[in-house]
C-alpha cells in the first residue's frame, strides 16, 4: 500500500467503493503516482485550492481594511460579499481588451500569462499540509526568491511595452522600488536559515529519530550543507522540532520581511508604481479586460505567496498541536486516517490569515510614500536592520549567550519524554 494520504481520505469518505479504489490505487501505483501528483498540483493544494484561497484572502483583506475604517466593505455579492473578488475577475474577463496602436500587442499579451505562471509556481513551494510543499528540493528558498524577482521583471516589462507616458513613469518607479526591496527581502528570509544552520551544527549528537518519526519529509541526514539549510521544508520542520517559531528568535527580521513584502506586492504605503491619484494606474494603465483579470489574480496569488512564506519561515507553517496525528510509521502501517494533514492545513490557514491581518492593518495605517522616500527607506533603514538581526544572531550563537544550548537541551528532553 502506498503511504499516500489521499487514498486514505477517499477510502474514508467512500467506504462503499473500497474495492474500486483499491484497484485504481494499484493501477496508479504502477504509473508511479503520476496521477496523484497531478491531483496535488491541480486540485489540492495546487492551482484550484490556491486560487480560491487567494480570492478568499482578498475578500478577507478588503473586509479588514473596511472595518478598520468603520465601513462595511464588500457586502452584497454572496454571503457578506465573499464572492466579490470572484465577481471582479469574472467581470474583467468579460470586458473588451483595448490595445493602443503604438504598443507591442503580442508582448503585452504574453506578460500577464507569464506573471500568472510565476505566481502559481511560486505557490507550489509553500508548505500547506505538511512541512514540505508540492515542490520541495534542497535549496528551494533561493529559487523562490529568484522567481519573485522575475515577477518584478514582468511588471517592468508591462509598463514598458505599453507606450504610454504614465506607463513609463510607473515602470521606472516600479523598477526602482522592486529592485531596491529585493535585498531586505532576501536578507530577512535568510535569517531563519541561519538559525537552522546553527541548530544543526551544535556539537551535540542530535537524535536522528526524533526527526524521522514524523516521517513527512525527505530528511535523511543531518542538514549540514548550505543547500539543505536553504530549504523551506527544513526550516519549517526545524521549528516544529525545536518547538519555537522563529518569530520569537528573530522578530526584527520578521518585521523587515513584512515591510519588504509589502513593497514587493505594491501595497500602501508602497503602492507608488500604481499610485492612482498621480499617474492614473502606472504600469497597469493600458491593460484592460482579460489581461487585467490575470494581473489581478496573479497579484492576489503573490499576496498569498508572501503571507505563506512568512508563516513557513517565521511561524512554523502547518506546525501546531495535532499536526502529526496519524502520520507516524506505525499509524500508516495500520491504515489510520491521516488527521495530521487536516490539522496541518487548519494551522497553516490560521497563521496565514493572521499575517494577512497584520498586512491589512499596516495598509490602513499609512499614506503613500514618494519614490525617493521609498528608496531611501530601503537603503537607510531596512537593509541595516536586516543586517543587524543577522549580526545579533551570529553573536548569540557564537558566544552561546542566553544559554541557547541549555534551553534546547531542556526542550529536547521534554520532547523525548513526551
Amino acid at each position, binding site marked *: 500500500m502506498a503511504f499516500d494520504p489521499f487514498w486514505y481520505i477517499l477510502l474514508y469518505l467512500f467506504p462503499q467503493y473500497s474495492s474500486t479504489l483499491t484497484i485504481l490505487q494499484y493501477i496508479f501505483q504502477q504509473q508511479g503516482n503520476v496521477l496523484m501528483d497531478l491531483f496535488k498540483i491541480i486540485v489540492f493544494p495546487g492551482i484550484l485550492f490556491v486560487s480560491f484561497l487567494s480570492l478568499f484572502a482578498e475578500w478577507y483583506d478588503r473586509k479588514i481594511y473596511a472595518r478598520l475604517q*468603520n465601513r462595511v466593505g464588500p457586502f452584497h455579492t454572496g454571503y457578506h460579499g465573499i464572492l466579490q473578488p470572484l465577481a471582479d475577475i469574472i467581470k474583467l474577463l468579460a470586458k473588451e481588451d483595448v490595445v493602443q496602436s503604438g504598443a507591442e500587442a503580442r508582448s503585452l499579451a504574453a506578460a500577464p500569462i507569464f506573471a500568472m505562471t510565476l505566481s502559481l509556481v511560486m505557490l507550489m513551494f509553500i508548505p500547506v499540509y505538511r512541512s514540505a510543499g508540492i515542490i520541495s528540493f534542497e535549496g528551494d528558498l533561493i529559487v523562490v526568491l529568484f522567481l519573485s524577482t522575475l515577477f518584478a521583471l514582468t511588471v517592468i516589462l508591462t509598463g514598458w511595452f505599453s507606450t504610454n507616458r504614465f506607463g513609463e513613469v510607473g515602470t521606472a518607479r516600479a523598477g526602482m522600488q522592486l529592485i531596491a526591496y529585493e535585498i531586505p527581502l532576501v536578507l530577512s528570509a535568510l535569517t531563519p536559515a541561519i538559525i537552522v544552520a546553527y541548530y544543526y551544527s551544535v556539537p551535540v549528537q542530535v537524535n536522528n529519530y526524533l526527526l524521522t518519526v514524523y516521517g513527512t519529509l525527505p530528511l535523511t541526514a543531518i542538514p549540514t550543507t548550505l543547500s539543505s539549510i536553504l530549504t523551506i521544508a527544513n526550516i519549517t520542520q526545524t521549528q516544529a522540532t525545536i518547538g519555537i517559531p522563529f518569530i520569537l528568535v528573530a522578530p526584527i527580521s520578521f518585521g523587515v520581511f513584512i515591510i519588504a513584502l509589502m513593497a514587493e506586492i505594491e501595497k500602501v*504605503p508602497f503602492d507608488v508604481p500604481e499610485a492612482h491619484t498621480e499617474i492614473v494606474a502606472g504600469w497597469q494603465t493600458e491593460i484592460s479586460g482579460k489581461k487585467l483579470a490575470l494581473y489581478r489574480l496573479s497579484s492576489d496569488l503573490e499576496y498569498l505567496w508572501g503571507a505563506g512564506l512568512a508563516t513557513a519561515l517565521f511561524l512554523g507553517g502547518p506546525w501546531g498541536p495535532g499536526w502529526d496525528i496519524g502520520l507516524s510509521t506505525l499509524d500508516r502501517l495500520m491504515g489510520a486516517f491521516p488527521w495530521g494533514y487536516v490539522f496541518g492545513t487548519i494551522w497553516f490557514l490560521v497563521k496565514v490569515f493572521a499575517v494577512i491581518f497584520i498586512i491589512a492593518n499596516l495598509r490602513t495605517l499609512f*499614506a503613500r510614500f514618494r*519614490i*525617493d522616500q521609498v528608496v531611501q527607506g530601503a537603503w537607510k533603514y531596512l537593509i541595516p536592520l536586516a543586517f543587524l538581526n543577522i549580526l545579533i544572531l551570529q553573536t548569540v550563537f557564537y558566544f552561546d549567550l542566553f544559554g541557547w544550548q541549555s534551553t534546547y537541551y531542556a526542550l529536547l528532553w521534554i520532547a523525548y519524554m513526551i
Partner: protein
Amino acid sequence: MSTVKIPIGPQHPALKEPINVTIEVEGEQVVDGKVRIGYNHRGIEKACELRTYVRDIYLLERVCGICSHSHTTTFTQGVEELLDEDVPRRGLYIRTIVCELERLHSHMLWFGVAGHEIGFDTLLHYSWRDRELILDLLEMISGNRVNYAMNTIGGVRRDISKDMIPTLKKGMDTFRERCEYYLKLCSEEPTVLERTQGVGVLPTHMARKLGAVGPTVRASGVDMDCRKDDPCAAYDEVPFEVCTWDSCDVFARVAVRILEMIQSCNMIQWMLDHLPKDEIRLKLKRRVPEGEVLSRYEAPRGELIHYIKSNGTDTPERVKVRTPTLANWPSVEYMLKGCYIADVPIIVASIDPCISCTDRITFVDVEKEKTWMWDSNQLRRYGIEFYKKKRW
C-alpha cells in the same frame, strides 16, 4: 536629458473637475508646469443678466456646490447695499452661522480629499464620516444638505428655532474634538509629515506678489482675512482669531484649515448663545436703483468678490464674479517648479481648487492688443481644431 510632457489632463483620477495641468518632467522631477482652465465654463455671468435679482440668487448658488452659500451671501449683501437697507440683526446672525457651518463642511471635505491625494484613504473615510454630522445639522436648519437657499434679499428665509440649538451645540462639541484629533494626528503621523512638509513651498513675498488669497496666503504667514479686514454680516461682533502658520508648505495649509475649523466651532457656539431676538428678513422692493457695488466675503477658499451693476430695473446689468481659486492658480504654477511628480496632485489640491468657480474667460491677444468674446459655437469650433492639431 530631454523633458517629457505629461498631461494631468482634463480626465484624471486626481482631479474632481476638469482642468489641465501640463507638467514637463525630467525623470521624476518637474521642471515646469502650466495650468489651462476653461473646461468648466458655463456662461453664468451672462445668464445672470437675463434673470431678476431673486432668481439670480438661486443661479449663483449653483456656481459651486461646496461654497454655494458664500456666493449668495456676497450677492445679497451687494444688492442690499444698492438698496441701502439694513438687514435685521437676527437675520445677519443666522446668515453668519450658516456661513461658518459651510466653512466647516468645506474644510472637512478638503481634508478628506487631501488625504486621498497622498494615498491615505483611511483619513478620507474618517473625515467624511465626521462631515456627515455637519451635513445633518445643515439639513436640519435649511432643508437641504448642499445648496441651502437660506439667503434672500433682505435676510434669511428660515429661522433657527429653540429646539435646534442644543443639537447644534452638541454637534459643535463633537466636531471640535475630532478636529483637535486630526491636528494631533497630522503633526504626528510620519508618512503624512513626509508627504506634506517641505512640499509646495510658497514663500511669503511670492504669495503677496502672485496675489494668493485665503488659506493659501495665510499658510505663508500673511495675516489677510476678509472677515477681519472688511467685516460683513455679523463678523464685526463675533470674537475670533485669524489663523496663520509660518512654514509656507502644504503642511501649513493643512494646519491653517484645521485651526480655522476649530475657530468656526467656537464662533458658532458664541453666536448661538448671543442670538438677538429680532426679525429674520425685511421685505424689500424688487426694483433696484442705479448704482454699482463691489461686495467681498471670505469664502472657505479665500476672498470672493462680486461686482454688481444695476440700472433701475429688476434685472442686473452686469454681474462679475471673481472667485478665490482663480486668484490662486498663478501660485500653483510657481509651486510646481522643482517638485516631484508625486507631489503634483497634493500641490494642486492644497489651494483647494474649486474648478467650477474658476472659469470666466475673456480672450486677450497680447500681440494684436485687442480683446474679444466668443459665443459657444465659435468656442466649440476652436476647441475641435485645437485638439486636432494636438497642441499641448
